[in-house]
């Protein structure tokens, strides 16, 4: 009996030394993994990209709901009546008069202040000026602080309207009705003693600049290129804000804009409550952005491309996909660029959850009456808040007015791509470290990198130091590029050529390692891939859209980047990659200009990120191609 036990043990462990057996198992596993690696990579890539494509499909997403119980949206009876609408109309007449005699922003602000003072709300104006590359940007804000009865003045809600509508990103369309709404709303809200927070009304000048000046001064944040008068009226902490944008004569739908600077989103509870109120209290259909769904409005052109076969066009799923895709693409376009989709976006920087309600211009049926009711009810909802909106509801993808995706359902797509890149990088690293030809090098020189693991392979030194220094150099180059752009002196084509050529020239200085050691290109590519994957997977938490864009632009290209024996091929590859890295300089100068403006005025990180992170990474791939 006892003699049986060792036998069993032998059967279990396999004969011989248990350690040896364990190591053999491990090696076998490692070999399997190694053999499988290419397939794993391919699988990860395909799944990741397919997931990205599948996000708009109708299978994903869930209904929106209110998480914070205190909000109680739409539970109040609204008293906004036709008298108030008439008052709004009268204000509108004044504003139109001002517009016709094209009044200066000073006169407009003074008019607004006068209106507020007339109803007993202290109001002031604020002059400001930004100096940017394109010159000085001046304006005047008007703001009023209504001290609520029995409120300690430690909390406040902001109701704002910018003089320019967000139509065409502030292309000059006036937001007259928005301003009229805010002023008449102030007159109306003054009548009630139920406000637990102060109400701050802001009529900001321009499109984004005015509010940026006001909110920055309110929070005492320093901005070197901003000269703004200090605010002489103050209130407390702002938790929530709502921005009114009503450019047209009347409106059919209420569009909700929520993307903020640097990809920050407001708490979803806020926009869910407002859209709920709009639908139930105001009886107004709600849209994400201003995308009218072609299915419930017959005479709008279909958003599906014409070349699609009828069968697909009429397919409900395809249509749903198209509608959602349009919302998501618009959203990603804002978020990836870190741009604000409206005035509300500037407030996010100060931990204020804000949205813009956009009255989509149409020939009816809605006007001041329904908008007023919606705003009153929304403000009552915000007024209910006992705490800052804090449910972890900041990471979401709003695919439709009533449908959203949780972070868990879209994040993996990008993470998978990142992981694939990581594996490729590790694979390259192993490749660089092992060879059969060369004799084992002597340890001691720190360029010789470490034996990766338990295998009987001959290893060769890896030129780590050169690779790392090349990467550092490219990122420094990125910093230079950024300053060159900021100075705005050098034309972009020159910059493009300069920064495309410079790396190759600099590369000649680096001594390429001697034959026994691995080719520099391999190590460089390995590090490049690892770093890029780290950047992508970490960005994805902060700003999913940006990460997705990076995954698309860097995922495959960086992975397939490889040196080739023939010189001309290398040159062509290098050219292609440098276009990928710097092409935006010449291909979309307008975007570049806007990005720089956003950086200067709104401190949006997109421009520096591209210059200092994206471009260098791709340049490294280009160098990896150009190296022998």
């Amino acid at each position: 009996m006892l003699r049986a036990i060792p036998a069993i043990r032998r059967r279990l462990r396999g004969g011989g030394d248990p350690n040896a057996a364990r190591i053999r198992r491990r090696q076998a596993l490692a070999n399997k993994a190694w053999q499988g690696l290419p397939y794993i990579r391919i699988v990860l890539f395909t799944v990741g990209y397919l997931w990205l494509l599948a996000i708009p499909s109708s299978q994903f997403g869930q209904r929106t709901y209110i998480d914070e119980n205190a909000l109680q949206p739409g539970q109040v009876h609204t008293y906004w009546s036709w008298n108030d609408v008439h008052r709004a109309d009268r204000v509108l007449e004044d504003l139109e008069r001002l517009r016709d005699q094209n009044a200066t922003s000073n006169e407009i602000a003074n008019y607004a202040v006068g209106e507020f003072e007339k109803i007993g709300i202290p109001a002031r104006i604020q002059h400001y000026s930004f100096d940017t590359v394109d010159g000085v940007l001046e304006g005047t804000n008007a703001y009023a602080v209504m001290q609520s009865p029995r409120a300690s003045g430690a909390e406040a809600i902001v109701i704002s309207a910018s003089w320019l509508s967000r139509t065409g990103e502030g292309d000059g369309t006036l937001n007259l009705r928005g301003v009229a709404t805010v002023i008449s709303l102030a007159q109306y809200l003054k009548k009630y003693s139920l406000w637990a927070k102060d109400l701050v009304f802001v009529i900001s000048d321009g499109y984004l600049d005015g509010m940026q000046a006001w909110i920055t001064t309110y929070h005492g944040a320093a901005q070197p290129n901003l000269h703004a008068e200090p605010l002489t009226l103050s209130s407390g902490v702002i938790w929530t804000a709502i921005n009114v944008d009503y450019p047209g004569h009347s409106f059919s739908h209420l569009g909700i804009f929520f993307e903020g600077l640097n990809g920050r989103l407001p708490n979803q509870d806020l926009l869910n409550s407002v859209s709920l109120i709009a639908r139930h209290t105001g009886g107004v259909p709600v849209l994400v952005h201003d995308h009218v769904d072609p299915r419930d409005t017959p005479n709008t052109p279909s958003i599906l491309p014409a070349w699609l076969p009828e069968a697909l066009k009429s397919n409900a799923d395809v249509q749903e996909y198209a509608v959602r895709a349009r919302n998501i693409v618009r959203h990603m376009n804002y978020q990836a660029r870190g741009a604000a989709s409206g005035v509300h976006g500037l407030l996010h920087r100060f931990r204020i959850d804000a949205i813009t309600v956009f009255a989509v211009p149409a020939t009816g049926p809605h006007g001041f009456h329904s908008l007023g009711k919606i705003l009153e009810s929304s403000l009552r909802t915000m007024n209910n808040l006992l705490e800052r909106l804090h449910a972890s509801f900041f990471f979401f993808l709003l695919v439709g007015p009533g449908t959203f995706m949780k972070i868990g359902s879209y994040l993996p797509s990008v993470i998978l791509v990142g992981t694939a890149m990581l594996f490729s990088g590790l694979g390259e690293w192993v490749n660089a470290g092992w060879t059969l030809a060369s004799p084992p090098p002597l340890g001691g020189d720190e360029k010789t990198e470490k034996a990766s693991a338990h295998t009987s392979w001959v290893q060769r030194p890896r030129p780590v130091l050169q690779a790392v220094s090349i990467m550092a150099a490219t990122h420094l180059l990125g910093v230079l590029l950024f300053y060159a752009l900021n100075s705005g002196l050098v034309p972009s084509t020159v910059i493009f050529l300069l920064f495309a050529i410079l790396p190759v020239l600099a590369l000649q200085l680096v001594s390429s390692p001697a034959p026994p050691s691995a080719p520099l290109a391999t190590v460089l590519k390995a590090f490049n891939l690892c770093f890029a994957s780290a950047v992508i997977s970490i960005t994805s938490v902060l700003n999913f859209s940006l990460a997705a864009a990076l995954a698309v632009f860097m995922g495959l290209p960086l992975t397939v980047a490889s040196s080739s024996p023939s010189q001309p091929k290398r040159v062509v590859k290098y050219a292609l990659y440098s276009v990928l890295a710097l092409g935006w300089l010449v291909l979309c100068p307008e975007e570049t200009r806007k990005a720089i403006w956003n950086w200067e005025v709104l401190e949006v990180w997109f421009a520096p990120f591209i210059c200092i992170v994206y471009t260098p990474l791709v340049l490294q791939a280009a160098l990896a191609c150009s190296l022998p």
Partner: protein
Amino acid sequence: MRWLSCWRASLVLVLHLAAVGAASEQFDEDLTIRPLRDGKLSARFSFSTLLKDATPRDPQQLSSDDEAQHYTLFPLALGQILREYAVTELHLTLNAGKWNYDAWGYPEEPGVGTGAELWAWMGESIPASVDQRWQGLRNALAGLFCASLGHLDEQRTTSPALTFQPEGSLPNFTYPHQLRHATLPSEHVCTENLTPFLKLLPCKSLSGIASLLNPHRLFDADWHGLGVHVRYREDVGVEVRLTFQAIFDPVRYSQEKRRDWSLRSVFDRSIERACPVARSSKVRVELPRGPSPYSITPDPTAIIDGVATYVVDASEEALDVAMRWPTEDTFEYPNTSEAPPLTELSVRRTLKGTNQAEAQLTLVITNNLPVQVTTGYLETMPWLLQFYLHTLRAHVNGVARDDLVSILSYTPPVPHSRPALLQAVLTLPPSSTLHLTMDVVKPFLRYTEHQPDAQRGWDLPPAVLVPFAFGEGQNGTVAAAHGRRPRRMYTPIMLVDLATPDFSMPYNVIIMSCTLIALIFGSVFNLLTRKFVVVRVSPASDAQAAAEQRQQQR
């Protein structure tokens, strides 16, 4: 029927009290009404009961039994507390709202800080220390007024003796008196505080001026606050003053936006009958000085320099004072940017920056007088906000003027136990604005220390300014130029949001951290203790084979 019986009861009361009370106790009540320039109406009720020839209890006698107390008018519940904890002077205020000094001027009752404020002068003693009695006192008052004064613990208690001088006189006991002061800005005032307050009045709210205290209207006011003030007046006695102060907005109540008011329109009541035990009972109305003509009904008993006085007597018909501005059809609000502020100083105190780790405290003080003003500046800050005193900077229209600030005393805060106390003197140049900025850090609390609504943040007590020297009064000790005692100004309170941990995580955190530590600990000792051996894994041949495979992968 009920009314009648009530009436009888109080009549009996009168006869009884007229005999006993009048001798040793006095009760006076008055109501002061002041129309404000922004159409609002300030009303101040004051009910004072004087206990003649009484002296506060000497804390040294706390061990021995107290002599018997017989009160008829004097609120018994309060009296017992005062005796029990040997309190010489006591001030408790419960306010809601932000007092707008610029538009409303100085209040009749200086204590207008938002929330609850309690300060008391008590004699030190051996048997029971001041701090023990302070704790007992605030708990007793919390019970009496249904307010959460129990939270005024040592984390909020300071002793700013420079700012809160006794309003009465301090008897000289064996040991000197000490001040205890604490504020609870997040305390909300409502009916549950008013009811016990009314119970302390001899006539409750049945008759006399107190009958105007109608909760439905009082708690719809723009600002309201109740106060309890106990002081000892040398050779006179112990005086208890119960006050209620409110700011009403007649314009808001009226349909056609007029500022006309009457007792009935404001309080929805009128004074039906006088309080029989009151020695004096007056309604004072400050007559507006504005150009627009007004009328006031009924005819006042007397008008002394712009103040109309009505004596509430036992006359049968109800008193309903009313004031009208016949020429105005709607009220024209004055332009706040042009109208001069009604106080010497205008103060704004805000917390800049939205980072949850640090912020900047800014204090903007405008001197509205053409002469230099010297003011005391008091911060009693819980450790929830910690000052970096070395970053304290003063600017007058852009020019650095650190010489205008002189710090008298500073007690740094101790986390989890003690608040900071900063007493300084600011010199304000004539009609100019002083910007005071200071960096502050927000501490990180244990998850057990957070409030239930942790994400709201914490209300921070108001700062107090005491402008005490006007004109060329350079050295801070010059008495007030205007002869009256210096008046306190309370800044608005602030809300600070502290970073919160995840309250659902304790177990997860303990598990994860411990796992990581155990993992590393285990591996380290694995490496250190186990011995190294060289084992033959496999013949080189299959390594070769693996090698070829690997080559093919390239």
